[in-house]
């Protein structure tokens, strides 16, 4: 049985890797996302320059962001920075997964950060989105307290 240790700055290793579950992108995913971000562009629901419908380019970002939850219990955190490169459209019916690697961790002004590089790809390994995100770790028993 897999163990899920608590994510702490000390436990985190630069170079360690994460892998998401596979996910089938459905029209319902796109509909829900459109509601959440108030973006009902017609290409998400009908013909597009790529043929049929495409998903919002940022649709699968949470799959990447949550990769660490497949390995650790995450107490709390804040997203500090995000970079995306949209390489190929994500389309409904695709099965996609995200793979990531911790490329840095650091402490700045007393706050702990981790930096992860990732790619979201289809199951043939075709890269769809590449990105990098920086997350602040809020240690257990502490408050962020800045706002």
């Amino acid at each position, binding site marked *: 049985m897999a163990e899920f240790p608590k994510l702490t700055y000390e436990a985190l290793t630069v170079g360690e890797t994460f892998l998401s579950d596979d996910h089938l992108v459905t029209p319902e995913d796109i509909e829900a996302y459109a509601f959440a971000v108030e973006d009902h562009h017609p290409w998400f629901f009908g013909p597009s320059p790529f043929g049929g419908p495409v998903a*919002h380019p940022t649709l699968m*970002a949470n799959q990447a962001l949550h990769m660490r939850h497949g390995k650790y219990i995450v107490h709390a955190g804040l997203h500090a920075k*995000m970079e995306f490169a949209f390489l190929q459209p994500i389309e409904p019916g695709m099965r996609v997964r995200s793979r990531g690697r911790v490329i840095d961790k650091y402490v700045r002004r007393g706050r702990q950060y981790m930096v992860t590089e990732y790619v979201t790809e289809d199951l043939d390994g075709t890269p769809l989105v590449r990105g990098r995100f920086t997350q602040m770790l809020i240690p257990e028993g502490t408050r962020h307290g800045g706002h």
Partner: protein
Amino acid sequence: MAVTEALAVGQELPVLEKEPSQRRIDVYSGVRPRSIHTDEDWARQKGFRTTLAQGMMSTAYVSEMMTRQLGAGFVKGGTISMAFIKPVYAGDRLTVHGVVKELRPEAGQTRIVVDVWCQNQHGEKTAVGTASGLRA
């Protein structure tokens, strides 16, 4: 949706208005206990006045602005780089802004680089960065 308008450095893109309600945040983030996005008590325990929208919702807003402006050249070939500098709380009202920063040749097309930011109802910037896309 045809995209034909010419762009010039310094040009402002049409401003978007967004209202990340708790309901929208719930759908975006998934409702979970012990989440600063969907559990108000937990958010307060962590030092926030109420629940927060995920920072990435702001990248989705910028994605919409860029897709409306650049179309397919953003969906395939676009980029976003943003820093989340202030929390966005449930119920905040945001405006999403873009100003063309640079036009750069790239593989027979033009990469259009845009300074982007989100601003809350108090006039405070909540996220800042750049986005880009290609135009033939």
